[in-house]
């Protein structure tokens, strides 16, 4: 249960310009979704940082457990063959 004196937390994602992904920029407190958008506009786009904002209630985000990092991420460490680094890149390919 939320403390009624404390506004819920929202995570803020900003798209810097058309064609780019929304990137996580931070979080803020707001009483409702509309206020969260307004606060995000005032806090995170006052220097023209973006053209679009997403806000997500922080409690809606399901996160991996840092304590499980070993079992989640360690097994990938020795599988270098998953990186496509063994290919010769043709000279004609300019942007990769």
């Amino acid at each position, binding site marked *: 249960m939320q403390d009624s004196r404390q*506004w819920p937390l929202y995570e803020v994602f900003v798209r810097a310009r058309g064609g780019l992904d929304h990137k996580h920029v931070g979080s*803020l*407190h*707001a*009483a*409702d979704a*509309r*206020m969260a958008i*307004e*606060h995000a*506009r*005032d*806090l995170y786009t*006052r220097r023209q940082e973006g053209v679009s904002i997403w806000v997500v209630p922080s409690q809606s985000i399901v996160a991996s457990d840092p304590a499980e990092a070993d079992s989640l991420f360690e097994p990938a460490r020795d599988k270098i063959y998953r990186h496509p680094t063994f290919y010769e890149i043709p000279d004609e390919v300019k942007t990769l």
Partner: protein
Amino acid sequence: MSVDAGKVDADLVRYVLRLGDLSLILGQRLGEWVGHSPALEEDLGLANIALDMIGQARLLLSYAGEIEGRGRDEDQLAYLREQGAFFNAILAEQPNGDFGQTIVRQVLIDAFQLELYERMTASRDERLAAIAAKAVKEVRYHLRYSSGWLVRLGDGTDESHARVQSALDLLWPYTVELFAADEVDLRMAERGIGPPLANVYAGWSARIDAILSEATLRRPADRPHAWHGKRGQHSEHLGYVLAEMQYLQRTYPDARW
């Protein structure tokens, strides 16, 4: 620069000062919240609106100074005029009160500026039309912010409802002055420079009714007003606002950073 007083468009100077002073004094009032808002997020929200207001005031006061032709720039007009030479409607100078009272004042003025500037984009005065086109985008956001808060507070708890209703009752009488057209307003409308205030009022009134209805607030009755800030006759509050705003320039003339 010619000092032919007969050529100065005194009506236009007065009209532009009224608009600029409204933004300047309200911006100064909102600035008082910095560091005192109920939440850090609101601190920035109010400061952003204050900065928009100061930005509008800069454009308008600069323009007024140019038409006036006495060599006064925006800073001299803001920092070195006496109280009786400010022409903002006195709603703008009313104290912040609690957060709800600030929001009520903001909704009333935002809706006025929005209805005014939307129409002024078609002004025959190109400079005012350009200033209005810039301001209208800012003001549309201001009203979105302030009306959102008024609905939350009005349609909130018993205490928040009671507080904003009493703020509305307190400030409502000052709204009459915004729409009371005097000879300057009438001549500006005739010349196609400023929109007729009756039209601005019709738009404002409908907008305010819709917001108050959503906020479950009661619209107070209009009363004849006895204030003439637009003619330089102010409430006791403006002197304190100016004392704080002008202190630095008056104590250290021409100080710059």
